[in-house]
C-alpha cells in the first residue's frame, strides 16, 4: 500500500486532491457554513425568536416525538427482520430482502400519496372504517409517524444484516447446546455482537426521521400548532419572508443531523479497532 502510494506521481495525486477538495467545498462545506453565518448574523436574536414562538416550539416538539417513536418502531422491526432474513429460510426471503430496501428509492411524495390512498379519511381503502372507529390517521399524528417510519425503514436493516452474516451462528449454537433458551441466547450472544450496528442504524434513522419533509407534507395537513413539523416550519417561514426564523430552524435541524453523522464517524473506527 505504502509502496503503491509512493509510485503514484505526486503531481497527479495533488491534482486529484485539489479537485475533490474544491468540489466538496463548493457543493457542501461552503453552503452549510453560510447557513451558520446567516443564523448568527444578528447574534442570537433569530434563535431566541424561534424559541419564543409557541408554534415553532410545538413543531419542534412534535418533530422530536415523531422521530423518537419512529426510531423505536424501526429499531424493533429492523432487528427482527434482520434476524429473520439472515438466520431463517422461508419462501419469499430474497424478495423481502429486496423490498425492504425499496423505501430508499421511492419519492417522499409518492410515499405520502400511497398512505393517503389507503388511510385517507374520505375515500381511502381503510380510512373511512378507521375513522368510523374514531381513529384518524391522515392529517393527524399517526400518518406523520407512518410516513416517517416508511422513509427510514431500511436504515437499521442495512446496518445489522451484514454484521449478522459476518459473525455466523457458531456462538449461538454453542449457547443453545449449553442449554440457553432463545431469549437468553439473543440477549447474551446476539445482541452484544450487533450492538454497534444497531447504534449506527438508530443514529441514521434519527437523522432521517427528524428531517423528513415531502412525505410528511402530504399526509400531515400542515395545521399550524397541530400537525406542522419543524421541516414544514422552515418552508413556511422562508416563503413568508421570515428568513431569520427559517435559517434559525434550519440551523437547529442541521446541527442535529450533522451531530448524528459525526457521532457515527467517531464510533465506527473505535469498534473496528477492538
Amino acid at each position, binding site marked *: 500500500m505504502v509502496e503503491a502510494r509512493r509510485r503514484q506521481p505526486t503531481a497527479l495525486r495533488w491534482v486529484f486532491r485539489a479537485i475533490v477538495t474544491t468540489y466538496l467545498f463548493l457543493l457542501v462545506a461552503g453552503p452549510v457554513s453560510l447557513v451558520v453565518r446567516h443564523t448568527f448574523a444578528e447574534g442570537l436574536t433569530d434563535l431566541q425568536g424561534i424559541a419564543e414562538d409557541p408554534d415553532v416550539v410545538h413543531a419542534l416538539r412534535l418533530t422530536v416525538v415523531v422521530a423518537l417513536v419512529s426510531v423505536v418502531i424501526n429499531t424493533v422491526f429492523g432487528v427482527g427482520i434482520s434476524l429473520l432474513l*439472515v438466520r431463517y429460510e422461508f419462501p419469499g426471503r430474497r424478495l423481502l430482502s429486496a423490498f425492504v430496501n425499496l423505501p430508499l428509492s*421511492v419519492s*417522499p411524495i409518492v410515499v405520502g400519496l400511497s398512505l393517503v390512498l389507503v388511510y385517507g379519511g374520505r375515500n381511502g381503502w381503510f380510512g373511512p372504517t378507521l375513522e368510523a372507529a374514531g381513529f384518524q390517521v391522515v392529517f393527524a399524528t399517526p400518518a406523520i409517524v407512518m410516513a416517517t417510519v416508511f422513509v427510514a425503514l431500511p436504515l437499521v436493516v442495512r446496518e445489522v444484516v451484514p454484521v449478522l452474516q459476518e459473525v455466523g451462528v457458531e456462538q449461538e449454537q454453542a449457547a443453545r447446546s449449553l442449554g440457553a433458551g432463545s431469549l437468553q441466547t439473543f440477549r447474551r450472544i446476539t445482541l452484544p455482537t450487533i450492538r454497534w450496528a444497531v447504534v449506527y442504524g438508530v443514529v441514521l434513522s434519527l437523522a432521517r426521521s427528524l428531517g423528513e419533509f415531502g412525505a410528511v407534507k402530504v399526509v400531515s395537513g400542515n395545521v399550524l400548532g397541530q400537525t406542522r413539523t419543524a*421541516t414544514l416550519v422552515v*418552508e413556511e417561514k422562508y416563503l413568508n419572508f421570515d428568513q431569520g426564523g427559517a435559517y434559525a430552524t434550519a440551523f437547529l435541524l442541521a446541527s442535529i443531523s450533522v451531530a448524528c453523522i459525526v457521532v457515527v464517524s467517531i464510533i465506527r473506527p473505535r469498534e473496528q479497532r477492538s
Partner: protein
Amino acid sequence: MATVALGTGPTARLRRSVRPGHLTTASGVGLGVAMIWFSLLVLIPLSAVVVTAAGGGWTGFWSSVTNEQTAAAIRLTVGMAAVVTLINVVMGTLIAWVLVRDEFFGKRALEVLIDIPFALPTIVAGLVLLSLYGSDSPFGIDVANTRSAVFLAFLFVTLPFIVRMVQPVLAEIDPEVEQAAASLGASRFTTFRRVILPSLAPAITAGAALSFARGVSEYGSLVLLSGNLPFRTEVTSVRILSSVENNNLAGAASVATILLVISVAVMIAVEVLQRRMSRRG
C-alpha cells in the same frame, strides 16, 4: 469511516454466511407480525398507487402522464437525473479514489462532508444551497428559479451514493495487482482501465442506479430553490403533489406509478449487482 447506510448492503457478504435454519414457532410468529406491519405500511399503500392508476383504465393513465405539463416535468426530471448521475460516476469514483488511496490532513473532514447530504433534511439542503447560489450569493451566481437550480439540488442530494458504493470495493483491491500490471509495462491509464475499472464497475453501476433513483424522486431540496415553474423547473414529484392538492388522486397515482416503476427497477438492479459483487468477494 462512516459508510453510512449506503455500503455494500445486506447481500454483500452472503457468500460467507452459514446456511439459514428453518422457522421455529417463535420466529414464525415474528415473521407473521413483521409481514403484517410491512404490508400495512409499505406493500398495501404502494399497491394502492398502482391500483388507483389502473382504475382509470389505460386511456386515463395515458392522458395523465402525457399531459403537456406533466410530460415536460417527467422529461426534465429523468434527463437531469441522468446528467447528474453521469457526473457522479466521474466525481464519485474520483472522490472514492482520493479517500481510499490518498492520505492527507483533513481527510476525515471530507469523509464527514460526503455524508452530510444524506443526513441533512432536504428542505434544509435547499436553503443551504440557496444561501450560496441564490439571490444574495457571495459569488454573484444566482441559480434560483432556473434549471441550474434543479441540477445543483440533484448534484447535492446524490453525492454520497457512488462514493459509498465504490469506497469499500476499492479498499479491497490489492495494490500488488496494479504493481504487477505496471511491471508488465502497462501505463497508469491502461492499468486503471484494464485492471481497476472492471472490478469497480458493478459498484459504480449500483451507485449510479441509486443516484439516478434519488434524483428522479427528489422533492424537498427543490421547494425553495427551483421555484417550481411549469415547463421550466417543475419536477415530477411537484406535479404529483399539485395533483394531490387539487384532489386529483387518480392523476397523481398515474404519474406516481412511473416513479414507482423506476424505483422498483433500480432496486432490482442494485440487488442483482450486489449479489454479483458478493460472489466475486
